[in-house]
C-alpha cells in the first residue's frame, strides 16, 4: 500500500482555476483550517520538550512519500518541538520516493531520516541504516506492542519504529443509501456477496474500485488480495508473505478467484466510473467518490481514505459516508489488515536521534492526530484525538490486541515483488490474464536468496 497521494484536490484546483478563476477562488482558496492552529497549549510550551536536549540551529532532513496538505499537517505536528529544541527539520515529500531512495542511498546522499511505507523495501538498505539509540528504543517500547516493533527489527536490533498506522480492511458506504434501500451491513463474506447481488439487481452498481496511482498503480489491488488470503486462513497468509509457500500456491489462486467474483464482474463494478476496464485507470483517490453520490454502494479502502473525501462530504455514522469492517467468513470474525510507515535513519547525529525519539513519543502521535486525518497504533495516543468517527474507530481497532490482524503483505514482501511485480500483476489480472499465470509470474519475480 501507499498512502501518499493527496494530489487530486490540488490538481482539480489547478484545472478549475484554468477554467474559472472566480470559482477556484471560492472552492480552493484558503484551506478550511490552517494546520497547527488548533494545537493544544502544552504543545507550544517548551518545557514539554526539555528531555530532548537543546541544539543550536542544526538541520535534520526527512524524506517521505507524503506530499500536499498531509505534509503540511505533519510538519505542523513537529513544529513546536523543532523550535524549542533548536533543530530545523526539513521535510521533502516525493512522488517517486521508492526510486529516489535507491539513487540517494547508493549515491551516498541519503536523507537523515526516511519514512518507508514498505519494510520490505526499507530493509534492502539495512547496511546503510543506523539502529535506534537507547532513548528511541525506550520510547518505542513504551509506545508499541512487540508485534509492531518486530516489523522494524532485524536480528534483534530495532532499526525503525512505526510512524502512522492504517487499518485497511474497511468498506466505505453511504448510511443513507443503505437505509433507503433497506440494506443491512453484512456480517459475513457470503452476506456481503448476497448484498452485492441484491444491490446490482436493484439497479445500482455495487462496488467502485480504482487501482491507478502513478508509478505505484495496482497497489489497491494487492490490498484486496491480501484481505482475501487472510480470509482463506491466517496461517496461509503468514506462509505466503514469508515465502514458505510459492506465490502461485493454489490457496492464493483461490483468493484471486474470491476477489475476482467482484472485481472481474461487469455487473458488480465499477459504479460511477464504467466497467471492469476502468479500474486500472481510475485513480485510487477518486475511486470512492461515487459512494457519496449514490452511484456506487461500497468502496473497499483503508481508514486513511477519510482524508480523501471532498470537503463537503461528512464522515460519520449518521453522515454522508462511513465505514464497516470487511467481513470474514464467520460472523464476528473479521480479520484486519494494517499498514504503517517506518522511521528509518541514515545518520548517527545527536540531533537526528533526538528527532527520532520525538517521532516515537506519545506527544507527537497525539499532536499529529489533531493536525489532520491520521491514525496510529501508538499505545499512548488517545483515539478521541482522531479527526472523525471513522478514524476514531480505526485507532481503537489498531489498539485492540484481541483482533486477528496482519501487516500489509505486499509491503512486507521484498521490494521486487511487493512494490513491483505484485502491482503490475494486479493490472495484468484485470486485463484478462488468468490468476494462475499472474501468480506464477509474480513467483518468478521473487528474489532467489
Amino acid at each position, binding site marked *: 500500500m501507499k498512502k501518499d497521494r493527496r494530489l487530486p484536490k490540488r490538481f482539480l484546483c489547478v484545472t478549475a482555476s484554468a477554467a474559472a478563476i472566480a470559482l477556484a477562488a471560492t472552492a480552493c482558496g484558503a484551506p478550511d483550517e490552517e494546520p497547527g492552529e488548533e494545537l493544544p497549549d502544552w504543545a507550544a510550551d517548551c518545557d514539554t520538550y526539555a528531555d530532548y536536549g537543546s541544539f543550536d540551529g542544526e538541520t535534520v532532513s526527512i524524506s517521505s512519500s507524503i506530499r500536499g496538505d498531509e505534509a503540511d499537517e505533519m510538519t505542523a505536528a513537529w513544529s513546536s518541538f523543532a523550535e524549542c529544541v533548536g533543530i530545523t527539520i526539513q521535510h521533502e515529500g516525493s512522488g517517486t520516493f521508492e526510486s529516489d531512495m535507491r539513487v540517494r542511498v547508493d549515491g551516498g546522499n541519503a536523507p537523515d531520516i526516511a519514512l518507508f511505507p514498505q519494510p520490505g523495501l526499507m530493509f*534492502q538498505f539495512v547496511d546503510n541504516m543506523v539502529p535506534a539509540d537507547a532513548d528511541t528504543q525506550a520510547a518505542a517500547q513504551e509506545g508499541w506492542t512487540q508485534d509492531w516493533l518486530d516489523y522494524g527489527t532485524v536480528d534483534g536490533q530495532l532499526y525503525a519504529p512505526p510512524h502512522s498506522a492504517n487499518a485497511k480492511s474497511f468498506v466505505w458506504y453511504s448510511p443513507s443509501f443503505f437505509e433507503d434501500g433497506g440494506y443491512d451491513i453484512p456480517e459475513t463474506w457470503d452476506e456481503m456477496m448476497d448484498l452485492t447481488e441484491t444491490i446490482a439487481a436493484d439497479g445500482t452498481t455495487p462496488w467502485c474500485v480504482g487501482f491507478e496511482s502513478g508509478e505505484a498503480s495496482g497497489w489497491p489491488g494487492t490490498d484486496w488480495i491480501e484481505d482475501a488470503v487472510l480470509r482463506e486462513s491466517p496461517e496461509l497468509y503468514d506462509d505466503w508473505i514469508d515465502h514458505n509457500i510459492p506465490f502461485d500456491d493454489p490457496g492464493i489462486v483461490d483468493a484471486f478467484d474470491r476477489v475476482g467474483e467482484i472485481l472481474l464482474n461487469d455487473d458488480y463494478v465499477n459504479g460511477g*466510473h*464504467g466497467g471492469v476496464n*476502468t479500474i486500472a*485507470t481510475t485513480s485510487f483517490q477518486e475511486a470512492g467518490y461515487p459512494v457519496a453520490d449514490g452511484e456506487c454502494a461500497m468502496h473497499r479502502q483503508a481508514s486513511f481514505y477519510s482524508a480523501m473525501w471532498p470537503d463537503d462530504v461528512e464522515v460519520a455514522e449518521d453522515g454522508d459516508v462511513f465505514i464497516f469492517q470487511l467481513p470474514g467468513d464467520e460472523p464476528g470474525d473479521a480479520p484486519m489488515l494494517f499498514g504503517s510507515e517506518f522511521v528509518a535513519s541514515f545518520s548517527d547525529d545527536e540531533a537526528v536521534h533526538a528527532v527520532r525519539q520525538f517521532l516515537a513519543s506519545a506527544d507527537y502521535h497525539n499532536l499529529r492526530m489533531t493536525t489532520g486525518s491520521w491514525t496510529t497504533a501508538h499505545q499512548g495516543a488517545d483515539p478521541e484525538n482522531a479527526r472523525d468517527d471513522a478514524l476514531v474507530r480505526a485507532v481503537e481497532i489498531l489498539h485492540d490486541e484481541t483482533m486477528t490482524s496482519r501487516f500489509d503483505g505486499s509491503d512486507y514482501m521484498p521490494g521486487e515483488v511487493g512494490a513491483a511485480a505484485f502491482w503490475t500483476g494486479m493490472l495484468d489480472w484485470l*486485463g484478462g490474464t488468468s490468476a494462475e499465470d499472474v501468480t506464477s509470474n509474480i513467483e518468478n519475480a521473487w528474489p532467489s536468496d
Partner: protein
Amino acid sequence: MLGLGLAAFILVIVVLLALAELVAKRGSKALTAAVFLAPVGLLLGAGLVVPAARTLGLSMFDGSGENFVWFANFQWIFTDSGAQIILLNTLLWVVLTPLIATGIGLLYAVLIDGKRGEAIYKSLVFMPMAISFVGAAVIWRFIYDHRGGTDQIGLLNQVVVWLGGEPQAWLQMWPWNTLLLIVVLIWVQTGFATVVLSAALKGIPAEIQEAARIDGATPWQEFWRVTIPSIRPAIIVVVVTISIASLKLFDIVRTMTGGQFRTGVVADSMWFQAFRLGEAGRGAALAVVLFIMVIPIVAYQVHNLKRRQEETR
C-alpha cells in the same frame, strides 16, 4: 562558486595554450595535436569510455553487483516473457516511427514545396518539435483518456461516442497501446523530417528537373527517379536520427503508461530494473542490448558519410 569555476576554466585554457605554444616551438606536429587532444580524451574517457566499460561489466553481475553470473541477465532478456514483450515493442518503435514520420514528412514537404504560405505550413507541422516529450505525452494522454459511460474527456473516445461506438480503454489494449504511443513520437518528429527534407528539395538543381520533364517524365516518374535520388542523403539522415530517437525513447512511455499494460520499451525498463527494482545487472544488460541495437544504425551512417566524401572528392 560560479566565479571560481570560470576562473579555473580560464586557468586550464591558459595553461593548455601555453603548453601548446611551448611544444609548437619545438616543431613536433604530433605532440601539438596530443596536447590539444588530451583534455578531450580525458573527458571522453571519464564521461563515456569508463561508464560504458563499467556498464558492460555490471551486465554480468547480479542485482547486488557482487556475484558474477556470466550471461544470465542476457538470458533473462531473451527468455522472460515480460522482457520479450519489451524487445518486441522496441522493434515496433524503431521500425514504424522512422518510416512513417519520414514518409509523412516527405509527402508534406513535396506538397507544400513552392506553394504560397509555405513557411506557415512548415511552422505548423514543426511546432510539436518545440514541445518536450513529457509535455507531448501529457497532451496525448488526455486525447486517449477513457471514462466509463458517455461522458468522455478524451478526444478520441468522444469521437468514438459521437460515431455511436463504445469508448475504449486505449492505453490498456496491447499491442494497440504501443501503436498509439508511437503516434505521439511521429507527431513530434514529422516536423523535423519536413523541415530537413524541404530544405533538401530546394537544393535539387532546377536543370535536372527540367531535363527530366523535357524527356517526357510523368510527375510520378520525376518524383521517384529524380527527386528521391537527389535528396537521398537527407532522407538517410532523417531516418537515422529518428531511429535513434525511437530506440532510446523513455519519456513518452514513462509519462503515458509507466511501462504498464505491456507498453515497456528497452530504455524505460532499463531504468525500471536498475532504479526501481535494484536489479543493476539486468538494467546494465538492457543498456548493453540497446547499445548493440544502435551500432548497425550508426555503422550505416558512418559508411554513408564516407561514401559521400569519396564521391565528392
